[in-house]
């Protein structure tokens, strides 16, 4: 166990339950994310990944249990206070959720404009964020004119514009071709290793998850390199949680999951 894991978690789910008309969708989730850790949520469709992320951002409230983020029990906060609190959270939605009547620039700048930053600063930070996702040239386009991968990247730029300490990624590679998916994963690696964010990442693709565990972004060379072979302890912290039907089915690091013989977990390995 790495030393950080013992310290206060940044995100903690404690016995979280939520149900809809169709039945219980989350059945007592307990999960903790340590500072600077990337927790990868794997699970088949409908297993509750999106629900967990929305709970972590306070977009939904649990029917039972607690959600604690940065030491605050957000499941008991008023929506008014939550609006301010969410400044510390970047959310990359499953389908991007870009404002389709606003340009790329307006989408990325949205949060800064809402906070009333001055235009010169906005301009600079928007360019920086778009440069980070390599989309500076698309600044004046509308979301409808972009490809799926580009939209996803704009959505990442929008989430990181205020440099939040926590980023929640909902299936950032879903529905993308492998090459584009790889670009997105590289971006997420860069964000993790240069900004030190704490992240929850939902995905169907375990190869993305392994890439997160096995590679790191080297700020000096500016490339992605394998984590030192002498053990993952030198690399950034990545751990996995496999969700099944609204419950945590398996939890562990990349070695534990690779060795796991369980048939449900194995399904994601192929």
């Amino acid at each position, binding site marked *: 166990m790495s030393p950080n894991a013992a310290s206060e978690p940044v995100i903690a789910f404690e016995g979280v339950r939520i149900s809809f008309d169709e039945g219980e969708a989350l059945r007592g989730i307990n999960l903790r994310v340590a500072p600077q850790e990337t927790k990868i949520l794997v699970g088949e469709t409908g297993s509750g990944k999106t629900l967990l992320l*929305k709970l972590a*951002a306070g*977009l939904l409230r649990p029917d039972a249990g607690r959600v604690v983020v940065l030491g605050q029990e957000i499941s008991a906060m008023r*929506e*008014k206070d939550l*609006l*301010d609190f*969410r*400044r510390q*959270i970047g*959310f990359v*939605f*499953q*389908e991007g*959720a*870009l*404002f*389709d009547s606003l340009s790329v620039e307006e989408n990325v700048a*949205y*949060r800064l404009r*809402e*906070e009333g930053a001055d235009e010169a600063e906005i301009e600079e930070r928007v360019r920086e964020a778009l440069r980070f996702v390599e989309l500076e040239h698309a600044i004046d386009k509308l979301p409808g004119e972009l490809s799926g991968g580009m939209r996803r990247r704009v959505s990442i730029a*929008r989430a990181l514009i205020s440099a939040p300490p926590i980023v929640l990624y909902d299936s950032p590679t879903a529905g993308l071709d492998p090459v584009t998916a790889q670009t997105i994963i590289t971006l997420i690696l860069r964000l993790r290793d240069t900004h030190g964010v704490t992240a929850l990442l939902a995905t169907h693709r375990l190869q993305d998850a392994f890439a997160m565990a096995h590679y790191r972004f080297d700020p000096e060379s500016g490339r992605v390199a394998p984590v030192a072979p002498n053990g993952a302890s030198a690399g950034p912290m990545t751990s996995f949680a496999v969700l099944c039907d609204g419950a945590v089915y398996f939890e562990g690091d990349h070695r534990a999951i690779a060795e796991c013989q369980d048939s449900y977990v194995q399904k994601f390995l192929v």
Partner: protein
Amino acid sequence: MHEAAEVSPLSAIAEVVKRRIFAVQDYALLCFRAMANIATPPRYLAETLDQMDVIGVGSLPIVMLTGFFIGAVMVLQTASQFERFGQTALTGDVVAIALVRELGPSISALLVAGRNSSGIASELGSMVVTEQVDAMRAMGTDPIRKLVTPRVVATILMLPLLTAVADFVGLVGGFLVSNLELRLNPVQYWTRAIDALEFGDLIQGLTKPLIFGFILSTVGCYQGLKVRGGTQGVGRATTQAVVVASVLILVVNFFLTRFLLWIFR
């Protein structure tokens, strides 16, 4: 499913009633929050002006067109009655009173409901299903403040103006027909029309659109924000918004008229 089959009709009705009550409660809460937001910053002035343009300027042509023909047809209908008693001079009174008190406000409200309740519901509904509303919340914006309040304020401000335009254009329509068909003297028509109107009529004619504007915008927003179930849900919400807003306007119109007549008589 098995259990559902055994549910007694009584508890099924209770379930439906419960849902209705919750819906009314949600709607009331939305209305309250939309209005309460006006008192505190941030206020979205640019959005409000934008909506005033969409709702006010955008509705102007249809409101004028219908206003004109409503006024015109009223002269045709009333004149054929008045001619029997040789009292065609009274048409100005009738057109003015009916337009200002009743037809102007309700026809404008129904037209704007058809145009904007549906527009608001489909716009907000699409934003809900594409998670743009959640994205807004995730970035610290209150969607009621940013989306609902500007639309409600804009409609409340614009509908009385649209109604005033409809009233005026209606009187012009009435005048043209009375002049061309009945050979009514212009001075006679206009003085009668203007003299017929009392202070109470004007108050009635301006109070109604304020309240109708509130109804049609809040219903549109409510229907849009409660959309579930994709594109189909958006379609349903759009129709629902027009139906609910129109019916509500006509029902409220009755009670409001009763109330205003009681005050001004």
